[in-house]
């Protein structure tokens, strides 16, 4: 029972999900629920001149056509701050409050009917006329209109930061690089579309079954929009089919479902259709990043800068904070970073899969590689040369940083030292082979979180915490934490989440759930354990009476005196004697001093091999290795799945993802999953788990520092990485993804940080070098994303019949 945390336990909800019994937001069976569908704007800017819903109204079963003319007025939907106050973090929503069209695909009509089919048919018959106005959606052509926001990123960092003297740093150098990188619009596209069922239990009481990453922020925002008491709004969200940030904020559709339900005085369910997901639910802004690196011949960076431009909307502000990682990832005495925003007629960009870091590490790491190339230096060596032993921006020690070990282990596993420096020097017939590497980084966040643990009279043990499981494994890891901290087997824990009736927890975003809510669950279970033991030792009727509390162990539903198993009783016996229906403990866990003392990030290193067809430009990622120092791992299996997910998304981002904007219309055109390509399992091949279980531990349990070196592996296992075949004659298929993780225990009693990584694979960069230096491929580097034909992993699998 000692080591449940960290074990690769199977997902507790796995069976429910694969058998279709996990109930997602839209699937809750609510008696008498009507179905709503949205109609969205087809122009990017202007006014609604008229809405003709006569034909729609004639469709049998139609109950309501909601437009700006009959919509319920909401409180402060645009979330403007009161004078002298900071704005709350909620997103501005438009939700039919006026006749303005602010972006294409903005919800402008809601049709509600007895059935989905009727609602759909009626929605297709609604005729909207517009008075269009000129719109602007281009970034590149409007850089001069950009403004500088105050803050950037989830941590509220300043949007502009300078240290040292950038110009001096540039002039001290032997080599200077200035290069602009761009990344396209991207859309989250979780498998499960956004969906809400709204049920008014009373005129001032609302229940929402909502696909949300944050039940409590959802509750707060909806309560404020409708002028309700927060405690009168209940949000239920037991399962999520992904979110990637898009289900963090409350968007218009949630308010519209509640509004329609209020109007009709009956429950209403609403799901956003796939094409409608391109715009109204947040997206990742295009970025344009100008990187400057100056270095001495020996590879020492003397200046480093990133100036980023990205979009915001005309009615809200969001910064894709991609310059932040350039502040802290490398030792650069002179540093200058800035975020600028261009106001565009698009839906507000928002948090998406490693907001900021994903495009930011891409540009930074690409520039690092270009500089390494110019220096004729190995890219990994160049990074090590500029390794930051402390956070150069904050001037603080790291809470933990095992990046150099990640580099070393990753390089070993990958066979990096056999990499020739010269690009285009590895070939397999018509295929160019490129090896690249990049650093991963993501801030470690933690917020106040609560949990309660309860031992029932029948001996069952249950733990509740609001929180959400996006599919990342929250159910499973919380069960493990609760089991170990209380002293029972995981099978005996009933962990519940996804309901605002449970203790309050933060949004599952910014990779903070494991650290925040994990800590709360740990403390609650521990407190309950102590309460129980205390009760036993101070109960004269208990066989454990008088035993010292430290000497009581919990096992198999019983309390024992250590070394004297005859002194024992069951949980039930104890509670029965005390006449207690249950014993409960609550805990809140809040970030402590560590926030001020340390700079906290998870780090990693990724290595990729790509194969590029020299004639067609088709790209395959034939293998990848990732090594991560991500703090205490709560479940080796689900954490690994997160690492793999991060790497796979990185590949998808580098090679496929691109929401194509038709600037003339101000609309995304590839608004479906056939044309908006992201990575899929059938092209992701198999993965190798090399050395995953090789547990590493820190030599000390004192406050973690970069100097806390890794000591001997606890359970050494032979590496299962197949031996490396030199690429020149490599025709065999390579293992595809492999990950490993460095286990570190950061601070006693605190579970930190979340097992989650992100970094964009440097496949991108290597490709860039490949293409830049490949004269006969006529695809320009700037357009690599959109014009290079790519393909990945393995050939078409063998046909089969279902």
């Amino acid at each position, binding site marked *: 029972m000692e080591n449940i945390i960290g074990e690769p336990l199977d997902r507790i909800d796995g069976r429910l999900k694969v058998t279709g019994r996990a109930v997602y937001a839209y699937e809750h069976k609510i008696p008498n629920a009507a179905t709503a569908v949205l109609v969205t704007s087809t122009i990017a800017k202007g006014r609604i001149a008229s809405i003709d819903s006569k034909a729609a109204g004639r469709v049998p079963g139609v109950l309501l056509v909601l437009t700006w003319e009959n919509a319920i007025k909401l409180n402060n939907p645009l979330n403007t701050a009161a004078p002298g106050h900071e704005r709350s973090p909620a997103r501005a929503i438009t939700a039919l409050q006026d006749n303005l069209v602010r972006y294409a695909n903005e919800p402008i009509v809601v049709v509600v009917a007895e059935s989905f089919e009727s609602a759909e*048919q009626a929605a*297709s018959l609604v005729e909207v006329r517009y008075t269009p106005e000129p719109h602007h959606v281009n970034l590149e052509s409007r850089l001069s209109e950009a403004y500088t926001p105050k803050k950037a990123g989830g941590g509220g960092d300043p949007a502009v930061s300078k240290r040292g003297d950038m110009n001096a740093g540039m002039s001290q150098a032997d080599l200077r690089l200035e290069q602009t990188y761009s990344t396209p619009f991207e859309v989250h596209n979780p498998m499960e579309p956004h969906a809400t069922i709204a049920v008014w239990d009373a005129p001032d009481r609302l229940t929402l079954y909502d696909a949300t990453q944050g039940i409590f922020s959802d509750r707060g925002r909806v309560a404020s929009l409708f002028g309700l008491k927060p405690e009168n709004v209940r949000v239920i969200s037991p399962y999520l089919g992904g979110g990637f940030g898009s289900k963090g904020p409350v968007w218009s559709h949630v308010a519209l479902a509640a509004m329609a339900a209020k109007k009709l005085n009956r429950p209403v369910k609403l799901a956003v259709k796939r094409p409608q997901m391109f715009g109204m639910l947040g997206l990742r802004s295009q970025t344009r990043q100008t990187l400057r690196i100056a270095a001495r011949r020996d590879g020492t960076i003397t200046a480093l800068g990133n100036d980023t431009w990205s979009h915001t909307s005309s009615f809200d502000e969001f910064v894709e904070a991609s310059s932040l990682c350039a502040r802290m990832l490398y030792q650069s005495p002179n540093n200058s970073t800035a975020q600028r925003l261009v106001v565009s007629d698009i839906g507000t960009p928002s948090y998406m899969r490693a907001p900021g870091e994903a495009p930011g590490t891409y540009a930074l790491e690409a520039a690092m590689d270009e500089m390494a190339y110019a220096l004729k230096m190995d890219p990994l060596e160049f990074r090590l040369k500029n390794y930051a032993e402390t956070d150069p921006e904050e001037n603080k020690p790291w809470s933990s940083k095992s990046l150099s070990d990640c580099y070393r282990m990753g390089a070993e596993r990958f066979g990096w030292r056999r990499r020739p420096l010269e690009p285009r020097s590895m070939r397999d017939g018509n295929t160019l082979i490129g090896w690249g590497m990049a650093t991963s980084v993501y801030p470690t966040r933690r917020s106040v979180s609560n949990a309660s643990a309860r031992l029932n009279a029948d001996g069952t043990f249950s733990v509740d915490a609001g929180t959400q499981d996006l599919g990342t494994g929250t159910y499973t890891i919380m069960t493990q934490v609760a089991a170990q901290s209380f002293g029972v087997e995981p099978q005996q824990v009933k962990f519940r989440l996804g309901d605002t009736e449970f203790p309050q927890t933060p949004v599952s975003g910014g990779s903070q759930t494991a650290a925040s809510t994990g800590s709360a669950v740990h403390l609650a279970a521990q407190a309950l354990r102590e309460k129980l033991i205390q009760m036993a030792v101070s109960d004269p009727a208990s066989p454990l009476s008088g035993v010292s509390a430290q000497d009581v162990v919990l096992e198999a539903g019983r309390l024992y005196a250590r070394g004297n198993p005859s002194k024992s009783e069951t949980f039930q016996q104890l509670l029965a004697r005390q006449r207690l229906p249950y014993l409960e403990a609550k805990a809140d866990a809040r970030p402590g001093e560590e926030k001020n003392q340390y700079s906290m990030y998870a780090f990693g290193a990724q290595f990729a091999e790509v194969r590029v067809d020299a*004639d067609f430009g088709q790209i395959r990622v034939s293998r990848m290795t990732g090594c991560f120092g991500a703090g205490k791992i709560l479940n080796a299996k689900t954490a690994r799945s997160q690492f793999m997910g991060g790497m796979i998304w990185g590949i998808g981002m580098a090679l*496929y993802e691109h929401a*194509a904007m038709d600037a003339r219309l101000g609309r995304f055109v590839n608004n479906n999953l056939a044309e908006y390509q992201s990575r*899929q399992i059938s092209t992701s091949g198999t993965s190798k788990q090399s050395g995953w279980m090789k547990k590493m531990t820190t030599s000390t349990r004192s406050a973690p520092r970069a100097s806390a070196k890794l000591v001997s592996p606890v359970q050494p296992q032979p590496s299962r990485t197949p031996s490396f075949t030199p690429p020149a004659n490599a025709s065999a298929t390579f293992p595809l993804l492999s990950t490993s993780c460095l286990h570190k225990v950061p601070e006693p009693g605190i579970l930190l940080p979340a097992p989650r990584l992100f970094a964009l694979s440097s496949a991108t960069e290597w490709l860039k070098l490949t293409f830049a230096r490949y004269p006969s491929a006529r695809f320009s580097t700037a357009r690599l994303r959109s014009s290079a034909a790519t393909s*990945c992993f393995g050939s078409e699998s063998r*046909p*089969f019949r279902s």
Partner: protein
Amino acid sequence: MTPFTYSCPKTIEEAIVAAESGPDVRFIGGGTNLIDLMKMGVEHPRRIIDLNKLPLKMIEEHNGGLRIGALVSNTDAANHPLVRSRYPVLSQAILAGATQQLRNKATMGGNLLQRTRCYYFYDPSFEECNKRRPGSGCAAIKGYNRIHAILGASDQCIAVQPSDMCVALLALDAVVQVDGPPRSIPMRDFHRLPGSTPQIDTNLQPGQLITAIDLPPIPYGRRSVYIKVRDRNSFAFALVSVATVLDTRPDGVIRKAHIALGGVAMKPWRATKAEQLLAGKKPDENTLRAAAGAELQPAKGYRDNAFKIELAKRCIIRSVQSALRAG
């Protein structure tokens, strides 16, 4: 989606009679394209005639070649031993398309008639699309046209026919068998270029039923290859593809080349100029480049798809080189 009625006839005659009832009738094979289009609001049939009970699921020898029934699934056709051994290019082309699940469902007849993936066609909330609404304009010409045509387009429409299977069928000189009334349509005449009537995709008349696809005997059919260049290795349509079948002499001289391109036009594109230039020649680098260049000479690129011109040339060259090694 607009409400519709559904019937499932058991004989070809019944199906044809049912289809005579008006313009709002659609046959349904696997439904993988039609249902999508209905959900998107592009197609609004009032009556659906399900073909799945028709006796059109045979693959049999026919006049020295093969006859493949219109209701044979893409998976079954691609895996049939006679298709694999005699016409491997067809098998490869089918397997390069869509995904296993879709191919299990998709039929030969439906695949022939699958519609373009032009974004502006597929989503009726885009106002301009001459194919969907004749006379409304072509949004793609002025818009984002990375997946669009470089050959045979018109100022009315620059869409492409997206099928992989059709490219191989064209290279193999297949013939489409139709009923209602009975007719044979060679593949090269089956699909239409947009011209001034982009709304009409094929020369099949409304209500006509595809019953089978005939493959003529091609003794050198094994010397063939299908190459598909796409963004992602599965579940992605071709940017450019090519099906090549070669009849060669023992000394390496090409007697006859069959080359068809996909992803470049509103019909699978027979590269007749390239074929002529290769006939009687040893395909060295220069000959191949000249042949490919001649074929693409009339090609016209738009803002986002000009890369397809060079890509198509390279596809032709690579496919001939690969086909020479095949079989």
